[in-house]
């Protein structure tokens, strides 16, 4: 299990007994003596390497271990410790991430600069690598802290549980697509154009009401049996209604959908649906 030596919020990293916090737990035993005692079991080293989120994190850790304020870094002491750490890791032939080596070079440069006379430091204030390093450390520390804060915030799955009741039996709601009249017209236009039948199938008002009447007559005949010819005509529909019914009936006869039956001469005329013999 990985532990976070720099985050006291992590219960696994809490000091066991007295002394500095352990760097890592190996087989349940705290490892606190790195890198002062330079012997590190190879397993521990892998854990140690994983415990840090990069060179800035390692530096922050070393600074804290020395009880230093970031602003008061003792560059020499920190550089020495950092180099020791790097040396150990390298000697174990662990592949060191480039970032760690770059940091080592930076630290070495800062250390050498600090040995120079003060005058020269002031001239180079613009790109003082020490100020830059401190700025980066501070910036990183802010977000490291922010990450810890976020981890402490109440969150779903751990502290927040969304309430969820069982579903009742839901009624079967069928929802249908909406259709606009214009869509039907457009569809009809395309299909007729495609069939190149537009001119010969000119649809007129009269024709449509006739076709509607044809449908309704067929529905009445669906149960089988006969209906009286006269019953097709309703006086309150007026003359036009009578004409439409008559045309519909003729069309049905022409299309061989119904037949007219007259049992006796001058007797009542009946309609019935044609059935194949």
């Amino acid at each position: 299990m990985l532990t976070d030596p720099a985050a006291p919020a992590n219960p696994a990293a809490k000091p066991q007994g007295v002394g500095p916090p352990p760097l890592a737990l190996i087989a349940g035993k705290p490892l606190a003596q790195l890198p002062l005692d330079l012997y590190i079991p190879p397993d521990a080293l892998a854990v140690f390497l994983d415990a840090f989120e990069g060179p800035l994190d390692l530096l922050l850790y070393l600074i804290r271990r020395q009880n230093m304020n970031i602003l008061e870094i003792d560059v020499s002491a920190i550089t020495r410790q950092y180099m020791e750490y790097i040396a150990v890791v390298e000697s174990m032939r662990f592949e060191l991430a480039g970032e760690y080596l770059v940091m080592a070079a930076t630290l070495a440069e800062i250390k050498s600069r600090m040995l120079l006379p003060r005058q020269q430091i002031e001239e180079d204030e613009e790109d003082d690598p020490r100020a830059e390093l401190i700025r980066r450390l501070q910036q990183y520390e802010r977000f490291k802290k922010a990450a810890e804060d976020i981890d402490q915030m109440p969150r779903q799955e751990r502290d927040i549980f969304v309430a969820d009741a069982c579903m009742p039996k839901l009624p079967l709601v069928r929802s249908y697509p909406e259709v606009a009249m214009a869509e039907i017209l457009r569809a009809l236009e395309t299909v007729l154009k495609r069939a190149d039948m537009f001119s010969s199938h000119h649809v007129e008002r009269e024709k449509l009401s006739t076709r509607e009447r044809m449908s309704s007559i067929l529905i009445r005949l669906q149960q089988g049996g006969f209906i009286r010819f006269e019953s097709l005509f309703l006086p309150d529909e007026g003359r036009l209604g009578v004409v439409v019914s008559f045309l519909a009936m003729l069309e049905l006869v022409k299309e061989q959908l119904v037949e007219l039956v007259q049992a006796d001469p001058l007797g009542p005329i009946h309609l019935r649906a044609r059935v194949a013999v």
Partner: protein
Amino acid sequence: MMSDAALPITGIIEAVLLTAGKPLTVQQLREVFDETERPTHKAVEQALVELEQLCSGRGIELKKVASGYRLQVRESFAPWVARLFEEKPPRYSRALLETLALIGYRQPITRGEIEDIRGVAVSSNIIRTLVEREWVRIVGHREVPGRPAMYATTRQFLDYFNLISLDQLPPLSVSRDLDAIGREIEQKIEQTPFH
């Protein structure tokens, strides 16, 4: 565990039932309590009765099912819940609209006749959809080999488009803008006293 003995057991049971995602038995409910504060079987049952009373008039109710107790939405509230999960239906295909248009203007018409005009087969699905929606019905069979069904539009079809009769379907004329015709019909319908 920061358990607080002052918290009402009814509230704890409510919270637990509303997150369990499955019915819980009295025994399972007892087990969410620390051993030192675990209520008796009877106490849990009493809390359940109390919870049931607390739910009266609310959107949820306590239900006992085979595998325990659960809180579920009252069935009388189901229509609103159903609304939440209603999916927007997909649009109808061009093929369906063409079929519907042909049935509208050329009824009674058989599937074969529709296919003749459209030049492609009409899937059974389309016919079924139109019949299910109650826009189209079978009005008889043509007395030719196979006795194919003849389709016509229904009252519901007219109602949907706010028409009193098929005459009110706009006459087809290529020279006119179809959208304009659509608008015209809608205006006409609004003016008629029937609607």
